[in-house]
């Protein structure tokens, strides 16, 4: 579904990604972890071309992301993305947030878009908030709306960029629950997160990044039982034992 092949990226002369390669198959859940500055967020943003890359190739469902002839809006519409800071549109109600792209990008009728939006709001347990503005919701609620908004486009895969990092601790689980449910339904997911509990529960594979390279790419059981590299072992011991 998502093939990342030998991708490198520079900011000017500063190299942020070096020869990253991995594969996310249909229905697979891949968790990307690593210390801050390791390039994991940058890599996931390369998948839907929010960040350009200079070398290598990324294919999403067979479509090349880096190809200048690719219709990027069309490609992005098929890949849902959830951001660390939610990025709901603050000048629109929850319902408008959910219908905007359905109408403008997919050409659905406003009624059909709203129907779909209502269904998804119900699913994330926020139907009662449909006419509120994002600023009136808690962080956890906003992130659930953001997930619903991404799902409203019927994506073939979902990208999560540290979806719980900006949340208060008591709100993390309500967001993770939605993500677990999504994973169990067979959604293809690439998730940048430090939530190792989530990784243990639903991930198929774990990718560990450091210094812009993929250091480890292993089945979750193998990764948690015995990381191959010292860096991954050190990272795990730091985030798991306190």
């Amino acid at each position, binding site marked *: 579904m998502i093939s990342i092949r030998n991708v490198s990226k520079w900011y000017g002369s500063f190299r942020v990604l070096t020869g990253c390669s991995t594969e996310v198959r249909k229905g697979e859940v891949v968790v990307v972890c690593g210390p801050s500055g390791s390039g994991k967020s940058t890599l996931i*943003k390369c998948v*839907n071309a*929010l960040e350009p890359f200079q070398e290598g190739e990324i294919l999403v469902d067979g479509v090349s992301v880096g190809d200048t002839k690719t219709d*990027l*809006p*069309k490609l*992005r*519409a*098929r*890949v*849902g*993305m959830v*951001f660390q*800071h939610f*990025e*709901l*549109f*603050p*000048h629109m109600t929850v319902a408008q947030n959910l219908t*905007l*792209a359905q109408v*403008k*990008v*997919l050409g659905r009728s406003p009624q059909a878009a709203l129907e779909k939006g209502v269904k998804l709001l119900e699913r994330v347990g926020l139907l009662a908030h449909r006419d509120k503005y994002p*600023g009136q919701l808690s962080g956890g609620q906003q992130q659930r709306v*953001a997930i619903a*908004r*991404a799902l409203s*486009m019927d994506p073939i895969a979902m990208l999560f960029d540290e979806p719980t990092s900006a949340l208060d601790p008591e709100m993390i689980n309500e967001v993770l629950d939605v993500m677990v449910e999504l994973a169990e339904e067979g959604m293809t997911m690439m998730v940048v997160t430090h939530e190792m509990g989530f990784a243990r529960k639903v991930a198929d594979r774990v990718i560990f990044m450091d210094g812009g390279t993929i250091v480890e790419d292993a089945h979750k059981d193998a990764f948690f039982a015995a990381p191959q590299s010292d860096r991954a072992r050190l990272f795990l011991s730091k985030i798991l034992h306190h």
Partner: protein
Amino acid sequence: MSYSFDWSSIPGALPYLWHGARITLEITALAILVGIVWGTVLAVMRLSGHALLAAFAALYVNLFRSVPLLMVILWFFLIVPAALRALFGEGMPDIRLTSAFVAFSLFEAAYYAEIMRAGIQSVPKGQLSSALALGLTRGQAMRLVVLPQAFRNMTPLLLTQAIILFQDTSLVYVIGLADFFGAAYKVGDRDGRIVELLMFAGAAYFVVCFAASLAVRRLHSRVASP
């Protein structure tokens, strides 16, 4: 010997003054409208990342901001009539009013462009990213997501600039246009009551602008709180 005030020439001149006030308001309204639209286009051009467009917008903004408004008004009074004559032949509408419209619109656009540029930059970058991630085109993302927020953030500044513009319209006296200030001056000159008429005009400008800035301040405190 103290000056003795005589206000008697004002009541009779009110219709004429009102006519002037309408010209003031017309210039103000049109310059706000065109200025904001053209200024927003300039701001988007400047932030587009397109080298040629950005350079044009930067040149435009810096040029108009480096020239006194008075000169721009005079300049368009001399240029616009010639251009109109070339386009429409001799039968033209009021040249002075048209040239004032053009001068103020283009001049104000430079200031509105800077306000809108700050406004666009005040919108978190993630907003554009999330709009693009949903499949919106760059144009749609700007129009539907970024610009509405930029306008909202900048409303107090846009209105403050409008108040300045309202006062600056009095400069059209240099091309002999009888706006509110010009009308007051003419009446005062005719009746030998310049002091009274200018005080009256000043009071009128003060009331309008002070009321408007109070309204802006109230709006600002409302926009500032989430």
